């Protein structure tokens, strides 16, 4: 099963580093230099992830006249910030996009490793259910769950949606993935409220509750996440290369989850990779969670950096703590 095309959609609202500085006091130049982010896009208050996901699909249609939504038999949405607690975004999008009812729809609850996971899930599902055409959507609008005064996260994240079209006639063959989880680190990237363990309050009447007001927003232990990535990802990359019988030198480009420039530079150094092989693509989008890898791939395709035979190693890591690596063999 192969990647046929990728499209992206960004919200209209641009949030620059000057605004971030006003929100939380982080100097704009430090954000640009250390995180590699100059601006990011946020959804407006009345917009949701399905709005942006729908736009990504419309862009896919516009850019690919041969794309026929009625032929899609699998629609998967990677998100942990759906429009509603239930139902799943993929069901809402099936209706909004006017898709036939004979389509399998489900959401994948993963963060920054979600796109790499979803490629393997789709590949397996398509083989098992004899599905020829599939669509993977990613959209995890963190603007909805970050507290703007929180310096650990306010500057880092941005919103984006992507649509990846898969079929047997595509140009990006999905390899064998490596997957892993370290649930002991789960508390290092967490929203404590909103689940069954600590539900949101449902009335205006004051109800005594444990925790504090920040529990309804994203909490991130930046140092712990950095250490997790630096410890886990090199091993995952090595296992992935081995599974696919490919050497590190044979990989043309490395597309890691676009966590931050600082992190990717450290990862590049730890893996001993040439700088030009490590894709940096967060300058005007920020860390877009599960959308960051397909956004980077789309940029490479548009800039014609994927031509002929190109082997790209993808590696996503984050919430869970979870990670996934895979190799896509492009032939364009």
């Amino acid at each position: 099963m192969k990647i046929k095309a990728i499209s992206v959609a960004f919200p209209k609202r641009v949030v620059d580093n000057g605004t971030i500085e006003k929100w939380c006091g982080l100097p704009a130049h430090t954000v640009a230099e250390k995180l590699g982010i100059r601006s990011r896009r946020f959804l407006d208050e009345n917009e949701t992830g399905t709005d942006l996901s729908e736009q990504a699909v419309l862009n896919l249609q516009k850019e690919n006249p041969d794309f026929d939504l009625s032929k899609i038999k699998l629609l998967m949405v990677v998100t942990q910030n759906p429009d509603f607690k239930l139902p799943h975004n993929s069901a809402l999008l099936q209706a909004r996009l006017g898709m036939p009812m004979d389509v399998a729809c489900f959401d994948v609850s993963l963060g920054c490793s979600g796109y790499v996971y979803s490629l393997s899930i789709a590949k397996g599902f398509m083989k098992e259910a004899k599905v020829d055409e599939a669509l993977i959507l990613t959209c995890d609008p963190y603007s909805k769950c970050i507290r703007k005064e929180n310096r650990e996260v306010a500057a880092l994240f941005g919103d984006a949606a992507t649509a990846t079209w898969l079929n047997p006639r595509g140009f990006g063959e999905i390899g064998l993935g490596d997957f892993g989880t370290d649930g002991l680190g789960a508390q290092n990237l967490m929203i404590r409220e909103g689940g069954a363990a600590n539900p949101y309050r449902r009335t205006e009447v004051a109800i005594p509750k444990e925790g504090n007001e920040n529990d309804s927003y994203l909490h991130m232990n930046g140092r712990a996440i950095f250490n997790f990535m630096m410890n886990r990802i090199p091993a995952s990359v090595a296992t992935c290369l081995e599974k696919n019988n490919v050497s590190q030198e044979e990989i043309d480009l490395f597309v890691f989850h676009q966590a931050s420039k600082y992190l990717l530079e450290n990862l590049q150094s730890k893996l001993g990779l040439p700088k030009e092989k490590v894709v940096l693509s967060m300058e005007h989008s920020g860390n877009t969670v599960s959308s960051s890898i397909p956004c980077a791939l789309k940029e490479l395709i548009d800039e014609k950096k994927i031509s002929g035979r190109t082997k790209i190693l993808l590696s996503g890591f984050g919430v869970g703590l979870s990670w996934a690596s895979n190799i896509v063999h492009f032939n364009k």
Partner: protein
Amino acid sequence: MNETEILARLSSVLENVVKKPVSLTLDTDLIGESIIDSLDGMVFMLEVEQAFGKSFPEEINLVTEGYYRMRTLVDYLNQ
């Protein structure tokens, strides 16, 4: 390493992070004296871990535990 050597190394690490000359003494408080902001502060501690080959416990808050005060930091690195 003695305290003077540790301070010299910390100065070098810090200068690389904030991109300006700094002068550290055991009484310096990086956050209290606004020498470093929170993002640079996190990067500084990650760089200190690499430079000294010693990790800080992940579960503690380095700000509230006083690790940005050079006396505390030097004592920890000297252990």
